[in-house]
């Protein structure tokens, strides 16, 4: 048991890869055998990640489950893994969505099965590695490794323009990542100059103080990489192509997990390593403007889409705009909302792509005008779609609401104009999603091809069920999620705006609150007393 406890991240990381390698030895002809093997591996991958939730101690601010083995000592790169609250949530999202994506492909993919599942599982390891690693060199390796399987997933099993979409995805991301590599090397080299120690250790580099000028340059290099990945407004053009052409599982992973790498990068690297650049007024203004443009532009473009999947793809641009809006509010509310919204977006948009996938498998078209009145023949499908759409547009009691609300709260704290623009995004989301729902589910069932459509089967329901449960959970009782985020968010805020908690002693993640939270038995009065004393301390310090 202790061995598992000490090496759980390695196990979680390599179960998919081990499964992928095993898969290569199965006979190609035995299609169901391949399917079962892949599904079981993915399910096992999820199962081994479950203990992380129970073993994770949210009152500890340091990285947990840390593993460190020397890898390339001469350049200071290690095989080092660890989780904090932010990466824990993303790792769990990845293992859940990874399994769902594989389960959803049971009937929709029929050719070159072995390779298909091989690439999906390889991708899974790559994504987990990105979120788990505490070594910048290793991070870059995983970041790049993951491009190759995604390229093949789009390029082999994609739609009509798959080759174009696949290489576009690859090249866009690659241009960003090579610039990021230069940024990483610049940080590494400056740290080696300052301290004499060659290291890629992320925790060490997070405490590095770089001159502001250099910070701005590195911020720019990171920005290109992460903004392409998110994608932020002017860099988003690869996304609709990739999404529309990718197979359903590819879209689910792409929207659910891959996009989060960009926002994760901002939170993990740009903010703590380059605090002066990140909080530079011009940079904040720039990021906020791009986020707002993405929110509104993404919403408007979604509104006019004729293709169901493209609509969902553009809605991602809008929703990811919310996340960057929250992150660059640079306060606890904005950050924690921005991180939680990453999970929410993974759940809602992942589910939306599954919904599109289910109908595409039956009709082999995604033209919205081909549909109408589907709720008559597919009532269960219509209900599931309704819940998912509501979760995506931010209806209270569902997950999207919580995330967007907290983000807007954070943005409002800094500048009410940002929040005002942000709100229009929610209105637009309601418009395009409800209109989509109306056009496809309601109205007369006049297309004869739709008359005999089968409702969702048990397997398809099982792909959506976990996501819907999670959506309700976050919507109704988000406290555990915020609890997990409290420590890491506080750390980032302290790094980026050292004076923030002195001025806002009862903000999310403030030391007073953390102390109170560390004693679960503490009554309300002691908590209030703690807050009061913190305020007093703050006053005294002023």
């Amino acid at each position, binding site marked *: 048991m202790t061995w598992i406890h000490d090496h759980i991240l390695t196990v979680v990381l390599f179960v998919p890869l081990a499964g992928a390698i095993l898969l290569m030895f199965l006979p190609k002809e035995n299609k169901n055998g391949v399917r079962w093997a892949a599904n079981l591996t993915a399910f096992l991958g999820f199962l081994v990640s479950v203990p992380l939730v129970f073993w994770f101690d949210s009152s500890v601010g340091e990285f947990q489950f840390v593993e460190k083995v020397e890898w*390339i000592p*001469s350049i200071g790169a290690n095989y080092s893994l660890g989780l904090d609250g932010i990466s824990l949530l993303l790792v769990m999202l990845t293992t859940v969505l990874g399994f769902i994506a594989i389960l959803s492909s049971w009937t929709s993919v029929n050719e070159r099965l072995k390779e298909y599942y091989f690439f999906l599982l390889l991708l899974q390891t790559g994504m987990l590695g990105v979120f788990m690693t505490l070594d910048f060199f290793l991070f870059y*390796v995983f970041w790049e*490794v993951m491009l190759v399987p995604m390229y093949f997933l789009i390029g082999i099993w994609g739609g009509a323009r798959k*080759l174009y979409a696949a290489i576009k995805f*690859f090249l866009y991301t690659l241009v960003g990542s090579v*610039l990021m590599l230069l940024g990483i*090397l610049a940080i590494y080299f400056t740290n080696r100059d300052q301290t004499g120690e060659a290291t890629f250790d992320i925790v060490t580099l997070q405490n590095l103080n770089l001159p502001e000028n250099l910070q701005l340059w590195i911020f720019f290099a990171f920005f290109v990489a992460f903004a392409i990945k998110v994608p932020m407004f002017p860099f988003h053009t690869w996304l609709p192509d990739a999404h529309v052409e990718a197979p359903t599982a590819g879209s689910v992973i792409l929207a659910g997990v891959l996009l989060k790498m960009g926002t994760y990068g901002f939170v993990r690297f740009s903010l703590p390593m380059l605090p002066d650049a990140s909080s530079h007024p011009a940079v904040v203004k720039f990021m906020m403007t791009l986020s707002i443009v993405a929110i509104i532009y993404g919403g408007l473009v979604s509104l006019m889409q004729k293709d169901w999947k493209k609509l969902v793809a553009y809605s991602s641009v809008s929703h990811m705009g919310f996340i960057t809006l929250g992150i660059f509010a640079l306060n606890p509310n904005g950050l924690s909302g921005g991180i939680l919204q990453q999970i929410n977006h993974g759940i809602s948009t992942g589910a939306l792509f599954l919904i599109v996938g289910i109908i595409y498998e039956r009709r082999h078209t995604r033209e919205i005008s081909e549909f109408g009145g589907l709720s008559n023949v597919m009532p269960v499908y219509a209900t599931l779609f309704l819940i998912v759409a509501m979760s995506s547009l931010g209806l209270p009691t569902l997950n999207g609401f919580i995330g967007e609300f907290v983000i807007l709260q954070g943005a409002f704290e800094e500048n009410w104009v940002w929040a005002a623009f942000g709100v229009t995004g929610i209105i637009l989301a309601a418009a395009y999603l409800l209109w989509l729902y109306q056009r496809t589910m309601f109205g007369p069932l006049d297309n004869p091809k739709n008359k005999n459509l089968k409702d969702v089967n048990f397997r398809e329901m099982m792909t959506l069920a976990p996501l819907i449960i999670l959506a309700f959970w976050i919507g109704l009782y988000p406290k555990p999620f915020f609890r997990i985020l409290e420590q890491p968010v506080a750390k980032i805020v302290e790094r980026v705006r050292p004076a923030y908690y002195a001025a806002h002693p009862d903000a999310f993640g403030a030391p007073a609150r953390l102390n109170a939270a560390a004693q679960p038995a503490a009554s309300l009065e002691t908590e209030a007393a703690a807050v009061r004393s913190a305020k007093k301390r703050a006053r005294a310090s002023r």
Partner: protein
Amino acid sequence: MFSEYFSAVDFLLLKPAILLTIFGIGVMLTDLLLDERQKHFNAVTALVGIGFAAVQMLRIQSQMREAGVSEVEAFRGAIVLDGLGIFFIWLFLISTAITILISFRYLEIENEHHGEYYAIMLFATVGMIFLAIGMDLITLFIGLELMAVSIYILAGFLRGDRRSNEAAMKYLLLGAFSSGILIYGMSLLYGMSNSTNLREIGSALSQRPLGDPLVIMAVVTIAAGLFFKIGAVPFHQWVPDVYEGAPHSITAFMSVGPKVAAFALLLRMFLEPLGSLREQWEPLLIGVAVATMTLGNLAAISQSNIKRLLGYSAISHVGYILLGLVSGNETGLKGIAIYLLVYVFMNLGIFTVVVAMRRRDLVGDEINDMAGLMHKNPAMAILSLIFLLSLAGIPPTAGFLGKYFIFLSLLETGHYTLAVIAVLYVAVAIYYYFRIVVVMFMQAPLDQELPSISMGIRWALGITAAMTLLIGLYPEPFIQLASGPVLAILR
């Protein structure tokens, strides 16, 4: 009487080269006794020769370690075996051995299975060895010509094939021309220093006033000659043509062995005699490196012949390697050494695939000839993917490691713009390398004929792929290995 001029050390150092020569002659003699179907014994003999040379190298190294010396001089300083030399000799032995592995089946298909092929290849290796250990203009030049003349012959080895003849002719003319320019520069060096020893030339040159026209003239002519040999812009035109026309296996050989040897010469020349003139050649080198990367990468995009494409890609790799020399610090030189090491394996690997594409009725050098390889031979397709990713520099393959050191060295020495240009070309490179991947993985096979896989090709693929992955995943010992030559240069 004899020992007045030569010592035991002299012969000890030359033993690998002597052994290779003896085996080369041996191959030619035994070839006369073999009938048509036994020609593959020639390959075995040649491999055994390389094995003997390798064992001899190990013995020399262990003797040097016992004596605690990092460098041995012989022939009164005309030959110096240091870390750099040892490193390069190993690269040559490996390249030649792998090329022999992929050759014999190919030559059978081409109906040109003659013993001279292996003999000449061994002689070329001897030439390369002298390029790596020579410390004297005459020795270096003789080594260079021995290598070059051997390659002229090998490039035209398919006597019945017009493209092969054309390639050999083109290579001969341009090669002779470039050797002429090079020796012109060398004669200037001799004139200025009254010595043919590189180190003495170096100390004489550092006495000359800054901006001396004679010195500039010498630098430019030597640089031009060397750029010809490595295939850098603007002296690159022969590369795609010769690569396309030469027999597949010789293209594979040329792209690694002689190229690495030319780099050995280039490093020696630029760091030993011309080292003190850095300000004068650095701008020149920057311009050439950028132009080489640009032209190599952009011209590769539109190629339909895979050997031409790899030719242009080889040009672009030269650009990257030259960048390591531009920064010239410890990281940069380490980068060059690792890059060359990695390059030998990944480039031989992808050329092995090209050689296997040569089938009875198919030349196999068009990109489309690889269509559907994933269906015909999945293992080979996956290995090609690994080689191509490595050539582009995507981790965790070995190619990334070479680029990593080059990029880091550029940042360390403040060449920020160069670094940005260099990394962006990685994206361009992915584009053309993935044109091959698309054909292999996403197109249906054009015919049913399987690639011709012999025992040798299987071994060559296995070795090159294993090394490409191993260096990428566990680079530590290889970084240590590359530090040896760097220490030798920076001494």
